[in-house]
């Protein structure tokens, strides 16, 4: 019911609001906080820690953007898959950082702009070890539990159609309900992005009883999304994320950012950290923005390691999300 309400509210805002959308940066500065849409509960991406603080991979990019524009606070709006796009379209949130897949229809027809790809992911399938299934090709006739309102639904339909297999979907509104139904034995398969599957598995009754099949059935480039039409705001988000990626490439971390700002002889690092040039001022920010961001959240590698890497419940290998210099796809344009 809540989701229906939020959707209705979003539609209502579209119907009633006047044309006040250009200056997201000004609005955020005036409010003194950034309104960021995230997951309700997806460990590693957005979840509450023991102190009730929201932490995670997606959350860190919200915090990074808030630090870049120097507002002290981020207000999080937990959203289901279904609610997230209308919430952004209607202006209920300023930034959507919630494992949202970059697709053409969303870019072209929904009034959205994708900024960067922060995680190269793919949709995976999880089954019980006891079922003896080792490949997705053996899943003909299976019952599949999944969440509504994402590319997941279409990917799984495409995959089974392409391979001439049959299946029965059971579709829920919220990820916790999908997990509960799968855990109760309602479905043979649980499917979402591999990173999400690992996170969900860590919350199962017996995580070691489940196995993620080797096949990826789709490409899922995930990243922060902003409203179409406010180019300055999009650029700020884009370059804040690229800053964290380039910082990893050049060895700048949360710990040594201050030191490198003062001492680094590398002209690229000097420009990137705002010591020389007016790159950040040209974007509408101040020269202190990059060091603030890096000191708060660290570089991309630190963000990944802290939330998704080895030792976390998600335990995701870097894979494609390694720096381009190490054979991955993480590649920031030059700071020049």
């Amino acid at each position, binding site marked *: 019911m809540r989701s229906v309400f939020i959707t209705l509210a979003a539609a209502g805002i579209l119907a009633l609001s006047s044309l006040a959308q250009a200056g997201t940066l000004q609005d955020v500065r005036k409010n003194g906080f950034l309104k960021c849409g995230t997951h309700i509960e997806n460990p590693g991406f957005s979840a509450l820690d023991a102190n009730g603080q929201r932490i995670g991979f997606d959350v860190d990019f919200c915090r990074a953007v808030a630090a870049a524009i120097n507002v002290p606070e981020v207000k999080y709006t937990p959203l289901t898959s279904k609610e997230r796009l209308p919430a952004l379209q209607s202006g209920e949130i300023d930034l959507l950082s919630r494992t949202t897949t970059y697709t053409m*229809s969303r870019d072209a027809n929904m009034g959205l702009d994708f900024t960067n790809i922060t995680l190269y992911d793919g949709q995976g399938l999880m089954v019980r070890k006891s079922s003896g299934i080792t490949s997705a090709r053996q899943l003909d006739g299976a019952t599949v539990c999944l969440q509504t309102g994402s590319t997941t639904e279409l990917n799984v339909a495409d995959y089974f159609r392409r391979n001439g297999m049959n299946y029965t*979907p059971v579709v829920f*509104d919220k990820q916790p309900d999908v997990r509960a139904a799968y855990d109760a034995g309602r479905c043979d398969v649980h499917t979402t992005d591999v990173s999400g599957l690992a996170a969900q598995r860590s919350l199962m009754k017996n995580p070691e009883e489940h196995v993620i099949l080797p096949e990826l059935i789709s490409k899922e480039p995930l990243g922060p999304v902003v409203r179409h*039409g406010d180019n300055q705001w999009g650029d700020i988000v884009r370059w804040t994320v690229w800053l964290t990626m380039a910082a990893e490439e050049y060895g700048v971390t949360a710990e040594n950012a201050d030191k490198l700002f003062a001492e680094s002889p590398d002209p690229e690092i000097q420009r990137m950290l705002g010591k020389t040039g007016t790159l950040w001022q040209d974007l509408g920010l101040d020269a202190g923005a990059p060091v603030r961001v890096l000191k708060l959240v660290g570089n991309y590698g630190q963000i990944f390691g802290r939330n998704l890497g080895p030792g976390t419940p998600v335990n995701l290998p870097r894979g494609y999300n390694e720096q381009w210099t190490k054979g991955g796809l993480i590649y920031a344009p030059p700071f020049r």
Partner: protein
Amino acid sequence: MLGGFLWLAASMYRNTLENLRTRGIGSGFGFLRSEAGFRIGEVTGLPLPQGGFLYFLLSLAAGLLLSRLVARRLAPGRGGPLPGKGLAACLALSVGLPLLVLYAFRHSVEIVRYSESSSYLVALATGLANTFKVAALGCAGSTVLGLLVALGRLSPNWLLGTLCRWYVELNRNLPVLLQLFFWYFIVLRGLPGVAQSIDLGGWLVLNNRGLFLPALVPREGAWLFCGAVAAALCGVWVVLRRSRRMWEETGRPGRRALPGALLLLGLPALAWLAGGTPFSLDFPVLQGFNYKGGTGLTPEFTALVVGLTVYISAFNAEIIRAGIESVSRGQREAARALAMNERQVMRVVILPQAMRVIVPPLTSEYLAVVKNSSLAVGIGYPDFVSVGGTILNQSGQAVEIVGIWMGVFLCISLCISFCMNVYNARIALVER
């Protein structure tokens, strides 16, 4: 006032279009024709009438009209009984004729089944059909259950009365979404997995994927057989009517049991012999992940229907009890003084007077069933709102989908209200 409202609506409409345009969001209903691409867990076949179906509607209208004319001519006095011949003619005209026409044009009704390559429109219609299924069962079930609980509360038996009171208080005071989760996860956790299914030789299979029963597969004799059953039921009705009339006229009821049984067994048996086997059974068989074939109830559907039925039945029980208690004690005592037994007191004296109190609030409860069925998405049942939500997300047309949701629910609610109001007018107390 009205002008102001219209102005507000018009400016909202213009503002919406303007906002959608400036934000680069597509609008319009053209997207409904695009391919849906996703799969729906429970698909109900949608009957799509073709041109030939028109003949059936025409014949039905003509049959009803003619039978009314016949009835007017043969029994001019209002409400007078119809002689046997006239009744037979009326039945033949209003039932037989349309059935014949339907049989003749039976290929004119195409059954559309949703698949991934169907359009968004068919997807929405499938969701709507699923909602209708739940709503119809929920309304009927909650009325019957509510009546039973109301009678239980009124019974002089202390244990029964107390149990029913607890039933009402418990169900009425818990949020319906909570109850749905309770039923869904209780049903799921309580049932065995596929490998450990409770299997009664294929006649009934129960596991946490649902309840599976053999399916009836219509064969070539099905039409004739169904027609024969319908005819037999009409025949039994005529026999009962005749028996009642003889009882009123002579004090001795006419024969009922023998002719009734003969009709009920004989006609279908004859049809079976003449037309061949009407149905074959398709048993569910364990194959791969789950049972295949047969027909079944999924846990989502069952939980939704049971949850809504139980929740609304508590309200219905109180409405029915209030209606019955609104009839003054004197009426009951007067009826008893006329040597009526308890059944007759209830059926002839109490209920007709109680109904006019019961029906209006019952309408609200039926509306509540339909509206609450939209909670289905919480427990994974693909109802109208759930399917609409998926489409909203795939197409991004939030305003249009929300508009369709509101329009459709408004239509359903108005239809139910209309029907109940007509019924209410019919049972209203006639003041003399």
